[in-house]
């Protein structure tokens, strides 16, 4: 696993790429208008196997002091997509910078789908068709 290592007076600190990925993923889904991450086939299989994939849809490239992130997201229907994507970019950048001290040089957002509320499985019961 690739890791970002920094040296201090009393030793070294390593932050795994996976950790940066999880921070980016969580920061992205916090944003209003983001329905979830889109992890493709591999991400779907990992989730089917019962493992919670917190870095689904996130690709990170971490250097010694800088990081670049690619995110694949699904937005909720009705959201203003460029606005949501921009909020995702700034939230991810802020989260990574504050938690790891890395300078985030690039956050690329791919909007791969649109989610509709009625498609959610969490709908508790069928609504009556007429009132």
């Amino acid at each position: 696993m690739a890791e970002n290592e920094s040296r201090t007076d009393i030793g070294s600190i390593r932050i795994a790429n996976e950790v940066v990925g999880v921070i980016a993923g969580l920061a992205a889904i916090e944003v209003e208008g983001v329905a979830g991450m889109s992890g493709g086939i591999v991400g779907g299989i990992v989730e089917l196997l019962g493992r919670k994939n917190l870095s689904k849809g996130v690709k990170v490239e971490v250097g010694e002091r800088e990081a670049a992130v690619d995110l694949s997201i699904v937005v909720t229907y009705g959201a203003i997509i460029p606005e949501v994507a921009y909020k995702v970019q700034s939230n991810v950048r802020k989260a990574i910078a504050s938690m790891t001290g890395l300078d985030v040089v690039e956050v690329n957002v791919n909007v791969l789908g649109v989610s509709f509320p009625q498609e959610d499985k969490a709908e508790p019961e069928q609504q009556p068709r007429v009132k």
Partner: protein
Amino acid sequence: MSLAVRSVVFVFSVVILVLAVSAIGIALGWDPTITLMGIAEWVLAHRVGTGLVGVVAFALAVIGLYLSLQRESEPAGLVKETSLGTIVISQAAVETLIKRAAAEIEGVRTIRPTVSNLGDKLAVLLALEVAPDTNIPQLADQVRTRVQEYLAQTVGISDVNINIVVREISTSLQKARVK
């Protein structure tokens, strides 16, 4: 499909067809021994020709394998550059939004959008199936306006060229009971 691809597919189809017919023939009692002996004799007598056929078949097989394993390039999306990086709204997402917006117009039964020329502007082709007793030019105008408004609002793009093709008038007798 290009001419080269069609040629490769044609040759493979003919070979598969010959093999299939032979297999069916064997199953029905045909004895291929004499035919195979004849082919073997001819092949041994014409080594250069056989070699050439082998080289061509090998090249076709390699091309076929390459074409079958080639990944289709990801359709481009609507690209926006910001100070923090790039935002790409995929073609599929844009098509979903268009479908949804067009479906809001009364009289539209099914919508098949095709989005192209993505980059800084959009070209949309909407194939519609509409309800009978619909004023089609009026409906097309409504759909165009709604899709344009919706894309400007949600995707932030106002330069959209929308072409509408009414492919079918719905013949389904089933009508929604409530609106």
